[in-house]
């Protein structure tokens, strides 16, 4: 089966998508509501792979540098960028939630 990437941005306006419905793949029971995507799910596929590789290498940047065939500071710089991205994603407020807070 073709592996599809989870869309995280609206193709029309670029805003972060939210989950409205979750369904059981076996009995088709569904839960509806307004759920935000976790920060890690909102990362790009490359960023998610980087994070996965980091965990699989027990957090060793030296090992990760070897995996990617790049130098230690190059990997560390990418990790710094990823940390910044995760920080901004965890502090980001969606327009829907923002409206709720204001009303």
């Amino acid at each position, binding site marked *: 089966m073709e592996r599809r990437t989870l869309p995280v941005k609206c193709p029309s306006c670029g805003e972060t998508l939210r989950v409205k419905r979750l369904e059981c793949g076996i009995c088709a029971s569904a839960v509806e509501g307004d759920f935000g995507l976790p920060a890690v799910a909102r*990362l*790009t596929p*490359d*960023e998610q*792979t*980087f994070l996965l590789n980091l965990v699989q290498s027990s957090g060793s940047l030296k090992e990760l540098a070897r995996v*990617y*065939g*790049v*130098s*230690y*500071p*190059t990997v*560390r*710089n*990418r990790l*710094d*960028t*990823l940390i910044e*991205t995760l920080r901004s994603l965890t502090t980001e407020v969606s327009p829907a939630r923002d409206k709720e807070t204001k009303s």
Partner: protein
Amino acid sequence: MTETMAFPSRDSLRAWLFNPFHFIAGGRALAMGLAVLLLAGYNGSVSNSHFDGVLDFHTGAAAPLWLFLVEGGISWVSAALPLCLAGLLISKSRMRSIDVFGTAALARFPTLVMAFVALLPGYQRQIGRLTVMNLESIPADMAAFSFVALMVVAMLIWMVILMYNGFSVSCNARGWKAVTAFVVATLFGEIISKALIVVLAVWAMG
């Protein structure tokens, strides 16, 4: 907007030429850089090429090998130390001194090319004439002299690009802040290196 996680390709000639520090840093860059300094010093002693400053190249008087090696060492440390301090001031990352010193040493690779092209017999003959104020010009020797002069300028520009990229990768510094810190640190390094080499020359002459 998130920055892409894609790393530079190892097949990219451009990356290897202008920013090899994406692939080589730390102890490996330091070992390779020290080899470059030794070879450039040795080549320099043969062609009388002095790297007497962070961004200096002069063909001058013959001197013992150790003087060429010490000049290279002074130029490297004088470049790396201010860059390291600048990195500590502006970097928000956990930078390592070995990356700054290693990349600064490897960034001096173009000095090896400079010392090598300065071996051209035509260039050496022309320099020999200029040293004794002999203004006679032989076209072939003038051509060799011009070629070496152009190569030296090109190599110096390449070295500055390598030095900046080494600093940028080692300290995770980018943008105007990084450029300003690099320029100030390099100018400071140039002054330190010149002062130390003057002291060295005075001491060497007894």
